[in-house]
């Protein structure tokens, strides 16, 4: 792509006139490009394209029968135009990343980004800069996510069904585990992260799970040991949930799944208040007389109690809820996390929303409590394990809907950011179902194709230049393309995501502490790695307070 700045504004983006001979058909929306202004480079994204006539009458002239005339007019009388949105600027002299506060001057040259540009902005791959993919049409240049920043906030992975959310999640989990910057707890609804998952790709068929890649760094917990064993998994621990750990709040969260009405919810809180920690078990074991008795004593409605009991019987059918479990799952999870391991909890056949939400909520609530205590102790001077925890949940809109997010632990975690060292990685195909307030708290979003208007709107809410990114989002490929925006990248960028295959397995399990491998398409593996710095080296990376301020300026908050 080559062209010059034709016109534009700070608020509305820039229009680029393509040089004669450039083929607009080959320039995709989302392309990462650079405007070389007089003193600044403006790093930009192609957001729209159109055709303009210097003299509009030209459009109506019939030129199709005269190839010569046609060629004369293309590029002069009628020009191909690309609309770009500058995202950040670098003063060439100071070589410092700044928010865009001016526009490049008329006739500034526009070109495609090159490797050094990409490195300047996103950093070079190393231990904490995880190579997630390549810019559009630049298959040999790695784009990195700054993992340190990534884990500072809760994050989201969104996209329609089948766009690769599970694969992006795998990639990010691999990156985080490899970096050792945090521990991970995955509530793995479809049992696809721990051991092995499906791959629709005809030749690969299977996708390796975290345990296969990281061995002893990953523990597989299961709610359904039989299913795990049938899949050839040897779970490290079988999770059982005691009745007494189920609180009114947990039931309230799954009201939809249990078909509870608002009155029933009120009754639940009454039950808990009067019966204490064992309320659920006690209540489920009440006979008609006991219920009447309870109703009389507490002034509740007997009919409502009976109806509620019938509905809560559904819980008894969940095999992992036990009266007296052999072991405490939360303690075990903490034990593994504290020894530096990562935990994947498989649900096996227990993949109903009821089971998933109940378990995720109960475990997370208690784990979070422990982290809060630790943080407070740490403030008090006691040194404790302070490695941040990232909790992965799917179908996040169920947990974080506007109704729910204020009351649930997940809404709380998303809101309090990393105050207590716990953050979320939410995976969802229907981001519009998530509370807008939670959206605005998400640090980094990896967004694959979305087609519903309201979904697009919700992921872009609170993002600078959102209007411009709409087109980009709606025109992503159905697979392996995503836009990354937010806290962990200095500017939004469209990438072709790294392929989760043998090459990736090799890279991520290599012992060099980093993900140094170059994208493979162009030059194969080792080529170029000599030009890359080793792990931990972070030159050219704006750091410290200055960078913090910049990011604040770029993204607000």
């Amino acid at each position: 792509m080559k062209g010059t700045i034709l016109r534009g504004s700070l608020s509305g983006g820039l229009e680029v006139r393509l040089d004669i001979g450039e083929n607009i058909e080959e320039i995709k929306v989302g392309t990462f490009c650079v405007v070389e202004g007089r003193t600044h480079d403006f790093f930009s994204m192609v957001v729209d394209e159109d055709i303009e006539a210097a003299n509009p009458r030209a459009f109506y002239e019939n030129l199709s029968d005269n190839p010569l005339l046609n060629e004369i007019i293309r590029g002069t009388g009628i020009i191909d135009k690309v609309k770009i949105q500058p995202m950040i600027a670098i003063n060439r002299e100071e070589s410092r990343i700044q928010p865009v506060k001016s526009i490049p001057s008329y006739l500034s040259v526009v070109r495609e980004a090159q490797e050094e540009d990409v490195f300047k902005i996103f950093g070079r791959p190393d231990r904490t800069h995880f190579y997630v993919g390549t810019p559009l049409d630049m298959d040999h240049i790695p784009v990195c996510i700054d993992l340190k920043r990534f884990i500072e906030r809760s994050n989201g992975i969104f996209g329609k069904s089948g766009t690769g959310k599970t694969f992006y999640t795998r990639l990010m989990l691999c990156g985080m585990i490899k970096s050792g910057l945090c521990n991970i707890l995955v509530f793995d609804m479809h049992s696809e992260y721990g051991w092995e998952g499906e791959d629709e790709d005809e030749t690969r068929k299977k996708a390796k799970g975290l345990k296969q890649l990281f061995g002893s760094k990953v523990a597989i917990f299961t709610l359904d040991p039989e299913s795990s064993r049938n899949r050839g998994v040897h779970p490290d621990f079988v999770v059982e949930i005691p009745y007494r750990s189920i609180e009114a709040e947990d039931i309230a969260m799954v009201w939809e799944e249990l078909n509870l009405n608002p009155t029933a919810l009120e009754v639940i809180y009454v039950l808990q208040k009067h019966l204490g920690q064992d309320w659920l078990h006690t209540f489920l074991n009440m006979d008609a007389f006991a219920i009447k008795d309870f109703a009389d004593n507490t002034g509740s409605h007997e009919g409502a109690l009976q109806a509620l009991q019938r509905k809560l019987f559904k819980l008894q059918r969940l095999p992992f809820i036990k009266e007296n479990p052999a072991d405490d799952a939360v303690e075990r999870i903490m034990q593994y996390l504290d020894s530096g391991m990562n935990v994947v909890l498989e649900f096996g056949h227990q993949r109903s929303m009821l089971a998933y939400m109940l378990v995720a909520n109960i475990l997370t609530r208690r784990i979070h409590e422990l982290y809060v205590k630790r943080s407070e102790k740490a403030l008090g001077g006691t040194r404790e394990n302070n490695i941040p925890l990232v909790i992965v949940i799917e179908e996040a809109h169920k947990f974080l809907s506007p109704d729910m997010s204020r009351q649930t632990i997940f809404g709380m975690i998303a809101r309090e950011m990393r105050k207590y060292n716990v953050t979320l990685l939410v995976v969802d195909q229907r981001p519009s179902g998530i509370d807008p307030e939670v959206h605005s708290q998400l640090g980094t979003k990896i967004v694959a194709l979305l087609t519903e208007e309201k979904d697009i709107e919700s992921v872009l809410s609170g993002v600078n230049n959102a209007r411009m990114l709409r087109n980009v989002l709606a025109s992503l490929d159905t697979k392996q393309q995503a836009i990354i925006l937010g806290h962990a990248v200095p500017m939004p960028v469209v990438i072709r995501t790294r392929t989760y295959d043998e090459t990736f397995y090799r890279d991520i399990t290599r012992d060099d502490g980093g993900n140094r491998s170059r994208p493979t398409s162009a030059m194969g593996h080792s080529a170029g790695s000599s030009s890359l710095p080793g792990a931990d080296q972070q030159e050219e990376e704006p750091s410290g307070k200055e960078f913090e301020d910049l990011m604040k300026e770029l993204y607000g908050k």
Partner: protein
Amino acid sequence: MAIGEVIESTTAEFTAEARRYDRIPAYGSFVKVRDGNILVYGIVSGAYTGSMDGLSKAKAFFKSLDELKLEQPQIFELLRTEFSCVVVGYEEGGRYHPYYPPTHLGLHLPVEEADDLEVLTISQHLSYLDKTLNSPSGSGEELTAAVIRTAARLQPDPRTYIIKAGRELLRMMNYDTQRLKSVFERVDAV
């Protein structure tokens, strides 16, 4: 060899009388006139043949040309031809300048045809198109098409040259594609 002599001159144009009434440079071709130490270049923009005195008209005989030459040879002696040229630039001290010379041409200077090399040099400066397009002698589009044909034939890559000239013209025409079309309908696709 001179093919004509300047008989009228302005800054933008000059008129020459042809040495022979039936031998004149082609419409849209390049000519040159030496005037002291400068060499002025022009493009032939029109021609006229009529009676010597310029007042009376030649008379029709309704015979074939061959018969006429045998029977009435003297009538050809009474004919004269003039051709007009637009000034496009000049050469001085080995350098070509694509604009009017400081002074207009003197009269009675001999007019010669420009050679191919000269045409190649001049035609690199597309500003000549502006002079032909706005030629005072009438159809600018016709003349521009003719000179593009002349110049293109000599180029190593005529098609590229025509396209380049076309783009320049379109700008000069304020992106009036209709007008551009009327020029290029007269340029044969190469």
